[in-house]
């Protein structure tokens, strides 16, 4: 009851359920919440005791204005010595409790991360996430951008790299933060325990658009994950209508192909998010805009107005080209 009350108080801070460190949907986050609760209880008790002692001392001092101090402090009162011993013991017990709880939490996290069954490599760029699933059969690996799908209950190891500056990988509902540092490999372990849609966020200032560098995380059942993965392995569908064909032609022969990759087409750029399954994502441009037709129009027509300073240029597309491009992009499910 006390725990729920504390949590309720803390949740008043306004974090939504999809991006909160108090969600507990991942093993590491659940451990964190437990640790946090124990610390809160121990420290609150200590705080209240200290405050009480302070109040009592001040109150008693008020009542007896002129007190002659005995030079022999030790023998002044029969209460002080046992009180001090008791206080020291309380502190020792409290610290020991905190240390032990910390130890058990670390051990639990290490155990959860020791035998990963799924491996990802996440490469951070300014200001998007390049996500690759490393499969033992390399021809079945999947590359996507700005989203992660995970099967529930399966321990995951994520290798973290950066192509430019220091970023930080943080999915608060699942685990703590881990930096992505250019020139180094770091790693994070995830063990999602509850299905749901969560939001990750870059947690290290990385430039103008650091605030719009989010990650859509979907934790789903194993069957749903396999279905999603199988769909991701497909190459892009062939355009059917004339408008889609016009868009396909523009994308593969003009500016888009210099940076973006669409598997199964001649657009093979590696320096921008992979678009092969663009329309199946929940958001555009790493959480900047929700995925819908109007937003796709707005993004493709003028990305600089939505995310100024990001590396996708505003081309100044003609209206017909824009219609075709959006029509084709919407087929990339």
């Amino acid at each position, binding site marked *: 009851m006390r725990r729920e009350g504390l949590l309720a108080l803390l949740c008043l801070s306004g974090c939504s359920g999809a991006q909160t460190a108090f969600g507990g949907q991942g093993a590491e986050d659940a451990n964190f919440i437990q640790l946090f609760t124990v610390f809160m209880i121990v420290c609150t008790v200590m705080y209240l005791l200290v405050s009480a002692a302070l109040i009592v001392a001040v109150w008693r001092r008020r009542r007896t204005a002129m007190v002659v101090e005995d030079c022999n402090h030790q023998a002044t009162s029969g209460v002080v010595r046992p009180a001090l011993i008791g206080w020291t013991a309380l502190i020792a017990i409290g610290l020991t409790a905190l240390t032990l709880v910390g130890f058990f939490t670390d051990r639990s996290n290490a155990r959860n991360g020791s035998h990963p069954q799924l491996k990802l490599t996440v490469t951070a760029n300014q200001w998007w996430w390049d996500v690759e699933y490393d499969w033992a059969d390399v021809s079945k690996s999947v590359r996507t951008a700005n989203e992660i799908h995970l099967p529930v209950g399966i321990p995951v190891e994520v290798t973290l790299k950066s192509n430019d500056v220091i970023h930080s990988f943080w999915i608060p509902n699942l685990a703590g933060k881990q930096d992505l540092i250019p020139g180094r490999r770091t790693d994070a372990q995830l063990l999602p325990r509850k299905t749901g849609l969560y939001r990750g966020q870059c947690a290290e200032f990385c430039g103008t658009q650091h605030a719009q560098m989010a990650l859509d995380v979907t934790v789903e059942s194993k069957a749903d994950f396999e279905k999603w993965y199988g769909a991701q392995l497909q190459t892009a569908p062939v355009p059917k209508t004339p408008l889609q064909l016009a868009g396909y032609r523009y994308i593969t*022969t*003009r*500016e888009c*192909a*210099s*940076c973006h990759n669409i598997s199964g087409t001649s657009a093979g750029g590696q*320096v921008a998010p992979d678009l092969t399954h663009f329309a199946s994502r929940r958001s555009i441009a790493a959480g900047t805009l929700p995925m819908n037709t109007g937003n796709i129009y707005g993004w493709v027509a*003028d990305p*600089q*107005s939505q995310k*100024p*300073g990001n*590396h996708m*240029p*505003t*081309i*100044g597309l*003609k209206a017909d080209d824009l219609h075709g491009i959006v029509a084709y992009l919407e087929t990339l499910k």
Partner: protein
Amino acid sequence: MSLRFRNSTALLALAAALWGCNREERQTRGKPLGETATAAMPDTVYPGTGNAPAPDPRAAQYEGNASAIAQGQMLYNQMNCVGCHFHGGGGMGVALMDGKWRYGGRIDQIVASIDQGRPNGMPAWRHRLTEQQMWQLAAYVRTLSGQERKDAVSARADEVSNTPPQTQTKREPLMPADSDEQ
């Protein structure tokens, strides 16, 4: 002068100084290509000295602009310029750090070379890069010869480092005989 007046004057002066302290103008959007994409690229190669056409007004906006140079540095690696021109020394492609420019070494002439392509292997990047990206690339290429201002050039190279960063190298004087620049 009373202390109060002196202090408030000092404060006002400080505020004014800070307010005017824009490092440079940064345009994120650039001027988008309109319907007439070819309008920006006149042929500026001409015989003899003098008679140089007036420089494109965008030259002042991109030349020596730190953010354009930084973007250009990123694009230089991403668009594989480095595969032929290496980091200015040349290889399959010509050297970009010397004073020899067969098709002109002014920033707008470099943009024209990127846009139109050149014989012996330089691809034409028109419709593959936006104008703004070509100007950013050209601004970066202009720094490869070490002539650019130290507060504009990039302090960090993204590649294997053989040389000190440009912010710490001495600027070599341009020998008139070596340079084809007009």
